[in-house]
Each structure stands twice: as structure tokens, then as C-alpha cells.
């Protein structure tokens, strides 16, 4: 038993920390890639990365570094930045300060103060690489602290579910921008950067060796059963955490969540490579993204924003009829 509002906060702590970590990684890799000055490939990679993070298309773009600064600390009209994600995660943690462990709080609190402090520094170009690395490390540590200090009860499952849903959506976004391009347009360089942005270069080399082909990469990032950032892995993680919290929910409410998450997992567990790599590849991953949204909505409806009339004492029998 947990307050609905608290569960919601846990869910969003999971989402926002994952979002911040992903943005840090993508920007870190983009800025490094940008160092290969002049190379058209590097420019294309930067373009795709920025768009994956929600920046405007190329035409309106400014200097990559300036763009990265905006995506990190926000600016006028910038809705989503690393700063806002970390702030939102911390704010959600504050909301449930009585429910999380001191270790979790202190880590997030420290991270937030560091991001804020860095935002006011002028020499962003020099400190950017170090900043992203430290932030990613902090967020990794946060995941370890969550798993190591918090009870693996409801709150933990909501947090982990949020993280997995967010992760799947972020990966889909990156993939979508790459699957839309021709194999040659991306090139080895581009594919390697994609794998890096998904934190998957080393695991990929382990199973696929250093050949970078679209179908192999799709096979890995979409269908690999063991890589923790493949869509399939994410889908199974989501289903697992929904099963874990589902036992608590009202039967009718839980039904939708279980069905949706089970269907998504099945979709990925039993997909054929052709569906993912061929012309239908983009449509396939778009479906994954839609499913994630549907699952998110269903969870919200079942556990958090349910109608009071459905749950008042004595109404459950009425509802079944």
C-alpha cells in the first residue's frame, strides 16, 4: 500500500533520472564526435543527436557547443534540459522525502547542486566533457543506491518501471532518426556513434564483432535479449515491474496494464528480424513507442488517477456486473 501521489513521484524520479543520463551521454558523444572537424559524417551525427534530444532541425541551428549548452542548462523557450530533468527528479524526491532513503536523497541533492553550480560557469567548452562524465557517474551511482538501499517494494517497482519506459522511448527516438536514413548516409562512423549513445558499443562488439550494418545493429538494439538498453530488454523489464505492482491493484484496473505490457513484450520477444530491419522497421519501432505511451497511461489510470466512484467501499461488486 502506497499513496498514489507517492507512487507517481517514484515513477517520475525513474523517468527523469533516465532522461538526464541519456541526454548527458548523447551530448558527451556528440561533442567528442564534433572534434572530427570538417567531416560531414560528424556533422550529420551531431544533427541527429540534437534532434533526438528535441532541438530544432538543422536549418535553425547554431554552433553545436552553444546548442549543447542550451540542452544542458536550458534557455529561453527550451522545455527540456538536463538541468530541468535533474531538478524535476529532485523535486519529486523532495515530495516523497519521507519514503526514500537518505542515501538516495543526498546523491540526488548533491547532483542537483552541482548541475546548478556548473550552469553559472562561463567556460563550458572546457568543462563540458568532465561535467557530463561526472553527471553520468552520479546517475549510475544513484541507480546503485536505489537498488542497494531501498526496499524492493512498490516504490522501487514504480521507479524502475518509469526508468524502463523512459529508456525505451529514448532509444526509439534515436533509432527512428537512424532508420530513416540510408545505410550509406550514416556510415560506420554514424553507426558507431549510435551504439555509443545507447551505451552499447562494447556489448555490441562482443556479439556482432566490428561490422556495422543496419540489420545487425537493429537486431542488437531492438531484439537483443540480454543488453539492458535493447527495446526487447526494456519491454520485458516493464512487464516485470507491472506484474510486481499489479498484484496490489484493483483487478479491473490491473487487467489493462498487464495486457498492454505483455503484448509489447511478446511483440519484441517474438519479432522476426525482417520486420525490424526492412521497410517496416520504422513502423515497428513507432508501434513500440505508442505501446509505451499506452502503458504509461494505463498505469496512471489504474494506480494514480483512478476515479473515486469506482473504488469506494461497496462499489467493486457493482463494477464487475
Amino acid at each position: 500500500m502506497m499513496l498514489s501521489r507517492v507512487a507517481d513521484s517514484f515513477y517520475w524520479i525513474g523517468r527523469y533520472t533516465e532522461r538526464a543520463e541519456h541526454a548527458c551521454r548523447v551530448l558527451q558523444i556528440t561533442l567528442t564526435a564534433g572534434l572530427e572537424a570538417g567531416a560531414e559524417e560528424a556533422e550529420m551525427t551531431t544533427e541527429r543527436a540534437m534532434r533526438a534530444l528535441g532541438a530544432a532541425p538543422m536549418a535553425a541551428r547554431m554552433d553545436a557547443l552553444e546548442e549543447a549548452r542550451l540542452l544542458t542548462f536550458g534557455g529561453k523557450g527550451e522545455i527540456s534540459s538536463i538541468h530541468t530533468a535533474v531538478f524535476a527528479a529532485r523535486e519529486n524526491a523532495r515530495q516523497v522525502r519521507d519514503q526514500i532513503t537518505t542515501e538516495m536523497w543526498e546523491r540526488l541533492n548533491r547532483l542537483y547542486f552541482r548541475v546548478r553550480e556548473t550552469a553559472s560557469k562561463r567556460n563550458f567548452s572546457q568543462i563540458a566533457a568532465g561535467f557530463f562524465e561526472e553527471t553520468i557517474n552520479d546517475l549510475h551511482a544513484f541507480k546503485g543506491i536505489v537498488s542497494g538501499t531501498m526496499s524492493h517494494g512498490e516504490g522501487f517497482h514504480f521507479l524502475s518501471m518509469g526508468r524502463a519506459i523512459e529508456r525505451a522511448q529514448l532509444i526509439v527516438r534515436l533509432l527512428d532518426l537512424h532508420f530513416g536514413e540510408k545505410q550509406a548516409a550514416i556510415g560506420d562512423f554514424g553507426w558507431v556513434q549510435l551504439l555509443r549513445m545507447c551505451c552499447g558499443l562494447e556489448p555490441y562488439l562482443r556479439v556482432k564483432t566490428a561490422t556495422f550494418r543496419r540489420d545487425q545493429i537493429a537486431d542488437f538494439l531492438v531484439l537483443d535479449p540480454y543488453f539492458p538498453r535493447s527495446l526487447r530488454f526494456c519491454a520485458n523489464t516493464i512487464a516485470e515491474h507491472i506484474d510486481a505492482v499489479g498484484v496490489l491493484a484493483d483487478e479491473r484496473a490491473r487487467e489493462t496494464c498487464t495486457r498492454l505490457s505483455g503484448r509489447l513484450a511478446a511483440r519484441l520477444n517474438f519479432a522476426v528480424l525482417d520486420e525490424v530491419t526492412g521497410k517496416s522497421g520504422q513502423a515497428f519501432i513507432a508501434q513500440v513507442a505508442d505501446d509505451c505511451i499506452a502503458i504509461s497511461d494505463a498505469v496512471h489510470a489504474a494506480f494514480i488517477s483512478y476515479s473515486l466512484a469506482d473504488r469506494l467501499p461497496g462499489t467493486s461488486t457493482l463494477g464487475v456486473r
Partner: protein
Amino acid sequence: MARAPEKVSDMAAPPRPGQEGPFEGYHLGAAYDEMFDAKGDPRPGWAGLYNRLSQATPQSLRDLQANIDRTFMAQGVTFTVYGHEDSTERIIPTDILPRIIPAAEWDKLERGFKQRLEALNLFLADIYGDQAIINNGYVPRDLILGSTNYRREMLGVEVPHGAYVNICGTDVIRREDGAYVVLEDNLRVPSGVSYMLSNRDAVKRAFPDLYRAARVRPVESYPDDLLAMLKSLASEYQPDPTVVVLTPGVFNSAYFEHAFLARLMGTPLVEGRDLAIHDNVVYMRTTSGLKRVDVIYRRVDDAFVDPLAFRPDSTLGVAGLMNAYRAGNVVIANAPGAGVADDKAVYAYTPQIIKHYLDQDPIIDIVETFLCREKSQMSHVLANLDKLVVKAVGESGGYGMLIGPHATKAQIEEFAAKIKADPDNYIAQPTISLSTAPTYIDGAVETRHVDLRPFILCGAKMTLTPGALTRVALRKGSLVVNSSQGGGSKDTWVLSGPSDGRARS
């Protein structure tokens, strides 16, 4: 450090306040000093700290203080001035030097606080019941019924154990003769108990030997006592009642404390939007559906708990709560309407209230208070405005105040006019100097003014945690201990045995 006492006795003369040595900057004034008597000798109970300070180097004190500040910031023991993203979260400065209260002094205080709260609860039961004290003319009718804090909705409501005030934080100060006097009663949502607990944690670590040797009574059971008290409020109809803490939310300046208490009690921390009421029963929205709530420890002001009963623009409470309360389906602590008894004018009547209900003399005095509503007292006030502190009855936090000795002629005249225009709204008190206690200031030990706020719990039985929040005015000479105006806090050590060091129980 263990050899410290011998060293002191070896020296020709022990260090004295105001003389060269560790207490050079320590100036005894007219105010009662907690550590030194008039001759400059340490008072009973203070010898341990005195010896320790006699030995301490400025650097060692500085290190201890820096350590405490760091711990508090990291733990987020903060007092928030919140508004937007770049909000300021500040720690209330905690002084490393504890304030010490010998056992005998505490015994008297304890009896005094319990007597006072018992009488105030009887008073509240009376004014929300038969109103005998009003009908007999002991307390003016309009003073009670006309108070903004009087809640008609509470008339005739049966309150468990007759305890309207379940958590009470009474502020006391010491007169120049050392006697404790009550400055005000906080009967609505007194705060600061998280500082009592956090300060203890930090100071205990800074002076482990001293702490052990002094036989300080522990305060750590406060959250358990609080939970037991809250449960006792619903025990008549629920063997294991569900208790929640109701907070206005993260934007409230005391949010840290709300979360802190909820965490230590293991109870849900709810906001108004988490609650729903159906058929006069209170539920909270949980992931597994609606769950019944039996006791609400509310940290939301009366006026905001129920938009249907009180302020209609409030979003901090839940609609229908008062009806559920009146139906006896939920207990709210403190009971709505308890605030009428901590009114500044009612305060002047508290000695009579104690006498009336308990037939006892007050064990702890109050500050002499003149009611401008009484003609004879008003003329005295008007004649002595330059010596008195005048307070508006309905205001708090230092607003609407005249401090006579520091006021200009024009201000005094302005206040005289105000008093004449609306005498009911004003009371006056002589200026009192708060007692001073040793406080760490920039590497040295100096005197600063302090007050004392202990926390009394009252449900099926009354308990007083042997400890308190000591607030300290960190600005030199200042008498304002409020955290918003440069106040800090100190740990308060209540000793368990007689001052010769023998344990009593």
C-alpha cells in the same frame, strides 16, 4: 581531553568570564546567565562544559562547528524560503554548545507545563461545551467568542480524552532573577521538534565524553511517543488505527519537519489532495485503492483544513473533513479551534484559568501582562508606554509591536492613539531580558540570549520529552530568536540526576 579537570584545578585561578583566557569575550550583563553565577563560577550542571571550554582551542571549536554545518546541509535539515526554481534553502544555524538544564529545574518545569496544559485543555472543553467560565464572568465573553480563532464548528464536539491540544510547544524564558516564565503557548501547529532531534544527534557526536559523563536524558523516543499518543486518540474504536501526517506540501517552510516526523513514525505523509471523504469517512488514495484514515496529525492551520467549513479558497485541506470529524469517524490533532487559547489576551488570564479548573497556583508564572481592554490597566499602559512592550492581540511574528524603550516619541504617540481607538486589541508587558547562554561565535565563546521550547504530548496520558528546542539570538545583544531574523538553535541537555552526578533513576 580526559585529563582536563586536573589541569583546571592545577591552575592558580580558573578562567573567569570577561577576563583574559577562553572566556575573554564573555560579558555577563543584567540578564540571567545560564552558565555563570554572578561571581563568575559555573552553575550546577555546567562544570563539565565549562572545563571542556577552558581547554578548547579556537581551532578545535571552529572544526566542530564546521562539521555540524556540513552534516545539516547534506541531510537537508533545511528551513526553506521557497518560491521558484532558484529557491533558497537554508539551514537554521545550530550552535555546538549545548544548553544545560539540571534535573531539579526540569522537574519543576515538567510539573508546570503539565499543569498548564491540563488547565488549557479543560478550558477548551469548557468554552466549546457549557461555557461555564464565561457565564461565571471569569473570562470576558467577547474575548473568547469574538476571537478569530474561536471555531463555532467545534461546539459540542466530543474530543477523545478531552485533549484538544495534543502537541503543545510552550515558549518559556528566564527573568533576570532566573525564574522561568511562560512567554507564549503554541497550541496550533507548534514546530521545531525536528531540530530538537537533529541537534541532539549532531552535538552528541561533537562532545561524546561530555555527553556520557553528564548523564543527559535521551530525546530519541519522541517520534515513538508521538505515534503512540496519536494512536491513543482513536483507540476507543480502532485497535490499530491508521495515522497520517497532513502537510501543506513541499512549499511549506516546515516541510522538512513534516517529512522527518512521518519518516520516523513510519506513517504516510499526505497532502489534502491525497484525501477523499465519502459518507463522513476519510480515505486516502493509495495504489491499491482507497484506504481509511483514522487519525490526522495535521500540520495545516485550522482555517485551511476544510474549505467547506472554513476558508473556501483553501486547497490545502479536504472538503468535508470537519463533518467527518464531528461524526466521530476521524480524529484531528490538534483539534481545530485550540488556537483560541493561545491568544495574547487569553494568555493574561491563564493564571486564573489554572486556578479556576485545578484550584492550584501556577507553578510557572507568566510575564506580567496589562490588558488595555480593562480601563484601569489601559491608563497604566498609556502612562508608561516608554517602558513597556505593546503587542496587538491578533498579530504574531513581531508585527504590530511597540518596544517602548526603543521607540521614538512619534511612534509612542501613534501607538497611544491606536490603543485608545481599539483597546481590546492591545496588551502590554514590561520589557524582559532573556537569559544568556554560552554560544560559539567566530572561534570564541560569547553570551547570547536564549529561550526554551519543550514539547508536550497529550492523548490518553501526558508526556513531556526531557529535552527542548533552545532558540538563540545570534546577533549580539538581540532578543529576537526567530529563525527568520537571525536566530539559531541549540541542543538542550536535561540532566538525569542531581548535579553532583549521581544518577537518579
